[in-house]
């Protein structure tokens, strides 16, 4: 089973890396968007899924990555060389948020992250080095889709691989213990805050790398776009729809949510109501299958393997 999953993953990775040889620009653009969604969903899942710390402030890290890339590029640094500094800055900022934030538990932590996200968006709109609310543009000649496509695909592959390794490692087991019972973990000697900070920093850094590539691809960023609360919301939605705390779940969720987003954006009537659809999706998952598509698939497989369980398979639908 695990070997089959690994083989499928490698096949998808090779196909995605080789796609530019075969596919047109439009399709590659969709794939780039999908890879971005995979990075965001899988990174968020390291803190939100593995460690159970649900943050609604992840646009902050995308924004830090994007702004680091634009501002350094404007000072003559090669855009791709700005990715790592952006990731380090986001990781450092995640510690600044986490030190007070992780003193809070459960929904209180989540609410605090909304506050931080909004505060950053408002602050970024009112200072001059971000270009204020009108934003900043990348220097001319910095756009390079081919390199950017490969960068985002490699980042997506690396993020999923990192998530898979974390889940199986002692680090991942410790995060799982913290998720299931933080007091119980501390009673056994776990410094829970330190582990939450590490998971937060790792996922923030990965999201910021994607943010840098985002800036290079769109060439123009503004606080209202990269620090958008709706972006934070859709980052959370993907792993929840796919299956929170699993490795495959965020991939499936990214596929579903980014497809919905792309298709809905084509329909002018639905363009402004996609949040409504997200809300409906979220409620459906929480009501009917809290473990998302992965949970649904497991239920179906279990039902098919158990003879005489047809009525329950029907229920599962």
């Amino acid at each position, binding site marked *: 089973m695990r070997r089959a999953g690994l083989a499928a993953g490698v096949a998808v990775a090779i196909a995605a890396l080789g796609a530019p040889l075969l596919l047109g620009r439009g399709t590659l653009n969709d794939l780039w968007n999908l890879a971005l969604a995979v990075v965001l969903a899988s990174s968020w899942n390291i803190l939100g899924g593995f460690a159970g710390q649900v943050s609604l402030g992840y646009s902050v890290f995308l924004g830090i990555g994007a702004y680091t890339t634009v501002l350094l590029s404007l000072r003559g640094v090669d855009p791709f060389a700005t990715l790592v500094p952006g990731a380090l800055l986001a990781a450092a900022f995640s510690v600044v948020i986490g030190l007070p934030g992780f003193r809070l538990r459960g929904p209180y932590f989540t609410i605090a992250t909304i506050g931080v996200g909004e505060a950053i968006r408002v602050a970024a709109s009112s200072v001059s080095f971000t270009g204020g609310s009108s934003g900043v543009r990348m220097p001319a000649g910095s756009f390079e889709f081919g390199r950017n496509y490969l960068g985002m695909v490699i980042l997506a592959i690396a993020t999923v691989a990192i998530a898979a390794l974390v889940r199986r490692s002692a680090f991942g087991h410790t995060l799982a213990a913290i998720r299931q019972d933080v007091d119980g973990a501390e009673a*056994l000697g776990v410094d829970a805050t330190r582990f939450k900070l590490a998971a937060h920093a790792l996922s923030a850094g990965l999201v910021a790398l994607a943010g840098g590539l985002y800036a290079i691809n769109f060439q123009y960023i503004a606080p209202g776009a990269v620090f958008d609360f709706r972006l934070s919301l859709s980052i959370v939605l993907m792993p929840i729809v796919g299956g929170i705390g699993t490795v495959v779940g965020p991939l499936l969720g990214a596929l579903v949510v980014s497809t919905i987003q792309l298709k809905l954006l084509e329909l002018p009537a639905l363009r402004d109501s996609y949040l409504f659809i997200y809300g409906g999706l979220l409620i459906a998952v929480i009501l009917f299958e809290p473990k998302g598509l992965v949970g649904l698939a497991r239920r179906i497989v279990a039902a098919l393997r158990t003879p005489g369980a047809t009525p329950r398979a029907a229920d599962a639908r």
Partner: protein
Amino acid sequence: MPGEALLSVRGLRKRFGGLLAVAGVDFDVARGEVFGIIGPNGAGKTTLFGCLVGALRSTAGEVRFLGERIDGLPCHRIVRRGLVRTHQIVRPFREMTVADNVAIGAHFGRGAHRAARAARAVRDVLERTGLAHRADTLAGALTIGELKRLEIARSLATEPAALCLDEVMGGLNPGEIAGAMALIRAIQASGVTVLMIEHHVHAVAAVSDRIMVLNFGRKIAEGSPSAVLADPAVVEAYLGSETPIEAA
């Protein structure tokens, strides 16, 4: 009876709003002994354990362990110094296997074992607590008796100098209680000092070297099991005038 004080508590108080749950308690626990703590419900026994291991911050008083002040330290630091407790209401990591539950203790306890040594430590502890055959079972699937033993196993995996057991016999049948008593004696024999809160008076009297009785957050008696259980103040306050002693 063994010698020097491993744990020394002076004037320990814990206030919750208007309630003084622990109202100035002094006691010493010698290295290698089994120290029983009994008292009616609400006497402050579990709160006392919480203050010792740093899960609760005491309002006043001093806790010395291995000669050093530990009051005010966070829980995970105290575990690393070798003082750990089990929980009265078991709190396993239900979605993890029994072995992985124990591994957390082996990684983060005083031993701080990595990889192969941790795996060996886990196997050893599972063997001692009679859970070896359940190593790969999800903790959520265990019986209450097994869950109580898992609490002990995880705590033992931290390689404590002193282990605080909070009602590990609660909810167990007589056969399981006999097993738990044997386990406590084996833990003592392996060199670990044991503090135990217990409602089963016969059991606690049988395994303890000394017993302390708490009532309304105060110590009302301390000494050998037979002396303490014969103390009129204890009979009055703890055992009451009706059925003197619970069936074990």
